[in-house]
Structure formats: structure tokens, C-alpha cells
């Protein structure tokens, strides 16, 4: 899959289950938007097979579009239409739309229904954007970096909306470059870097985080000591046993496993290094 002169993504192999929130995680420029635009039917691929809801997005028509909803990475709204008008306009495009009032409360804009889009905050505009993708009552929803540039409270509200979609039984394909967003929302995460997939799994198991090396840190004789081990129970037992026998303290004792952030940074840095 490439465009222009540069091959943007290669060998992407994804499978998304019905009803799950799937996070496609990667740094800026990793190829997330290229991939999602191929899935949405906006972009042609040079090679490979794609099936979304049983159809090839390049050839899919109106019927297929009735079943999907798309929130673009940077889509602004008609500044002169109100929240309700924007949603009503889109409702007309679909055969069996979800009632506008329901959509308004799904995205938490009850108090703003008659406000023009230009008068909404950035977070509220984004939620209206999500609402416009929900009007058609889609089975599958694409969200491309839905919270980029948000303040913490706007992010929290957007997350609540997305978490609510899972409860409605929607399949959500979420692209993001925030690890905490993937961790918080996704059933499964796939990490992409430099156009290639570098890891996949549930947020808990990603990159063998739960079976990887554990680090034990403490201070002895004023020095920082860090022990890496794959068997932390044994290592800790020996360490604390020896300290107790000698009647010593283990100052600043700390046992840590790599965070998702560590795994993510390590994987993406390695992939980008290889790509150079």
C-alpha cells in the first residue's frame, strides 16, 4: 500500500472482531491514517486484500456506507448549522437513522442542541463529529485520533462516549498515538511503527509485559542497584532473605514491570531505527 513515491505501509495484517474496540496505536507518521483510509475506502491500495464487513472498500457502494460511520482525524463542521441541524442533515443521508435526540444524548450535547457549531468548544465539536458518524446507526465506527489536542477533561468526556459505544455493541476501530487511550478503551491493541506492525495483543499482555523482565531496585552502601530478572519471586526471596539474615535494610526497595508506555516506546523506537 503506497501513495506518491513513498511506500507508507507494508505487510499490515489486521483482523478486527465484531463488537470489539480495536486500537491501532502508533506514533505520528507511522501509517495509521493511510491504513484507516484504505479501510474506509478513501484511499486505493497498491497491493493486498482488504475486507470490511465482507466487502472490498474500494468497490463497496451505498449499502456498505449505510453500515459504517467515519470520524476523520481533522474534520471541521459547518459553522453556521446548529448541533441539531448538522445531525438532521446527516440523518437524511441514511435509510434508517438513529433519532437525533438520541444521538445528542449519546455524545453528551443535550444542553447545546440549538447552538451553532462555531460556538462549541473544541471537545464539543469533536463530540458532534462523533455524533454525525453515529447518526446512521453504523455497525462499524472508525475513529481517527479522536482526542488529539484535548485537555484532560475533554478527553475524559470523549472516552466516556467511546466506552458507551462498546456498550451499544458497535465495533470500533480506533487509531491513536496515546497509550493511555488504547489501554483505557481497547479490547485489543496493535502497534504500528514506520509502516509495519511491531506488536499486537490485549493491553495487559502486549509485548509480553506480564512475562517479561522485572526490575528490582534498591540502595546499598549509598549506591543504586538494579537487578533484572525473569523470576522475580526467587530473586526477591534471596535478596530479602540475605538482608534479614544480616539485619540490614534494603533502602528504596522497588519492584517494577515495564509499563505499556515502556513497551510502546521501545518497540516503536526499534522499528523506526530499522526503517532508517
Amino acid at each position: 500500500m503506497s501513495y506518491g513515491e513513498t511506500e507508507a505501509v507494508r505487510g499490515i495484517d489486521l483482523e478486527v472482531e465484531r463488537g470489539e474496540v480495536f486500537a491501532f496505536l502508533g506514533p505520528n507518521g507511522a501509517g495509521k491514517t493511510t491504513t484507516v483510509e484504505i479501510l474506509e475506502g478513501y484511499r486505493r491500495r497498491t497491493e493486498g486484500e482488504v475486507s470490511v464487513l465482507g466487502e472490498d472498500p474500494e468497490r463497496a457502494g451505498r449499502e456498505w456506507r449505510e453500515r459504517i460511520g467515519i470520524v476523520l482525524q481533522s474534520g471541521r463542521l459547518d459553522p453556521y448549522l446548529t448541533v441539531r441541524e448538522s445531525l438532521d442533515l446527516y440523518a437524511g443521508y441514511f435509510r434508517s437513522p438513529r433519532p437525533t435526540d438520541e444521538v445528542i444524548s449519546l455524545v453528551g450535547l443535550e444542553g447545546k442542541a440549538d447552538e451553532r457549531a462555531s460556538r462549541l468548544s473544541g471537545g464539543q465539536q469533536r463530540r458532534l463529529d462523533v455524533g454525525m458518524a453515529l447518526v446512521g446507526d453504523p455497525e462499524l465506527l472508525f475513529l481517527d485520533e479522536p482526542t488529539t489536542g484535548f485537555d484532560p477533561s475533554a478527553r475524559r468526556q470523549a472516552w466516556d462516549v467511546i466506552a458507551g459505544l462498546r456498550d451499544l455493541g458497535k465495533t470500533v476501530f480506533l487509531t491513536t498515538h496515546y497509550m493511555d487511550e488504547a489501554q483505557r478503551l481497547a479490547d485489543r491493541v496493535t502497534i504500528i511503527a514506520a509502516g509495519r506492525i511491531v506488536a499486537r495483543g490485549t493491553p495487559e499482555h502486549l509485548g509480553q509485559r506480564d512475562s517479561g523482565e522485572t526490575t528490582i531496585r534498591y540502595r546499598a552502601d549509598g549506591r543504586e542497584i538494579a537487578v533484572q530478572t525473569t523470576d522475580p519471586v526467587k530473586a526477591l526471596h534471596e535478596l530479602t532473605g540475605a538482608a534479614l539474615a544480616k539485619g540490614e535494610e534494603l533502602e528504596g526497595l522497588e519492584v517494577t514491570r515495564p509499563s505499556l508506555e515502556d513497551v510502546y516506546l521501545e518497540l516503536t523506537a526499534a522499528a523506526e531505527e530499522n526503517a532508517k
Partner: protein
Amino acid sequence: MNGLALVGHQFRYDQKAFWRNPAAVFFTVMFPVIVFLILAVVFNGEEVEVRGGVEATTYYVPAIMSLAIISATMQTLAMTLVIAREDGRLKRGRGTPMPPWVFIAGRIGNSIVVALMMLVLLAAIGAALYGVSVPWGRLPAILLTLVIGAASFCCLGIALTALIPSQDAAAAIVNALLLPLYFLSGVFIPEDQLPNGVITFADLFPVRHFFDAFFDAYVPAGGAAVSWDNLAVVALWGVAGLLLAIKFFRWTPRSG
């Protein structure tokens, strides 16, 4: 909704958005009225040596109507479509089941309705303030000329979006093309006061031919009400615009 009902649906919201957009309303509705009033005040009482001589105020009614129709169609479409494209609104619409032609048809409908309103408004102002009689008998010719012109300039406006890279460039490019043509075509300055050769040059472009056709339709002093040769040139420009629009119009933002 079937296709036609969907066009009507789209048109309703395009109308709402148009009338709430102060820039669109100013340039499309207010600007032609202001220009007409200024020109009428300045040239009132003078005679323009065309078609055996007409009052300047009579001359300016079809002149500014031509400008208003081009503004409601070509200018409005080029500007609002570029803004919607760069906002990602066209792209978002393409992600829905709405057929793309419905969207374009709604916008063209919006432009033609505004053009018709401007026809009525300028005819009323011309008649009320300067006694420029409304040629009711020529109404079929006027409407035919308006529809051919409006459709052609809509196509040109849609084609023009391909040359406009960003929202900021839209007004500059559209005005840089149209304002000189209005001057050269005798829309602002009566054509008998333009140096020889200017009209010949302006005849290379559709603005002049549309104004000529509209003048013939509106002012009984001319001969036949329908100026087929001028309309044919305008329509050819329109078809060229349509072909270019089909080939080069894009739904996705160019920048960012």
C-alpha cells in the same frame, strides 16, 4: 429518500447555511446592490451609445444582474466548496451513503435560487428608483438566459476549485479572475467609453458574452430577446468547465 428528495433535503440546509454566512450574503447580495446604486448615482442622466442608445440606469440593471448571477453561482460555489473541502466537510460527506451528485446538485440549486432572487431584487430596485421598466414580455428569454448562464457559471465555479489550493487563496483567486473581466466587459464602465479592442479582448471570456446575452434579454432596445450566439459561447464555456470539474474536482483537503 430518493435522489430528488435528497437534493431537496441538501438544498434546505445549504440555504440555511448560506443566509447565516455574513461573507456570502455581503458579497452575493449586498455588494451587487451597492455597486448598482453607486453606478446609477454617478451616471444618472447620461446615455450609453449601445443598441442605438439607452439610459445609463437602464444599462446598469442587466449589467449588475449579470454580475450578481455570476457572483451567486461561480463565485459562491468556488469559495464555499473550497472552504468545505479544506475543512474536511466534503470528505466526511463522501463517507456517507449520500451520492456525490446529490451534494453538488443541492449546491447548484442553492446558487440558482439566489441568482433568481437577485434578478427580482435588482429589477425591483431599478424600477422603483430609476423607472427602469421590467420587460415582462421578455420573461421567458430572461429566464432562459439566466438558467443557461447560471448553469454554465456553476460548472466554471466547480472547475475553478481545482486551481485554489487553500481557503485563504479562494477570495483572492476568484476576485483576481472576475473583477478585471467585469471592467473589461463593460459591466462597470459603459462599453462605449472603453477603448477599442477592449471588448474584442473581453469577448474571449464568458463574462462578456453572458452580459451581452442578458442585455439583449432585458433591454427591448436590442433586437431579438434571445441572443443565441452569445448563449452558445457561454454554454461552451460551461461544458468545458463541467469536463474539467469532472476530471479535477477533489473531495479531500489539499492542505494538512
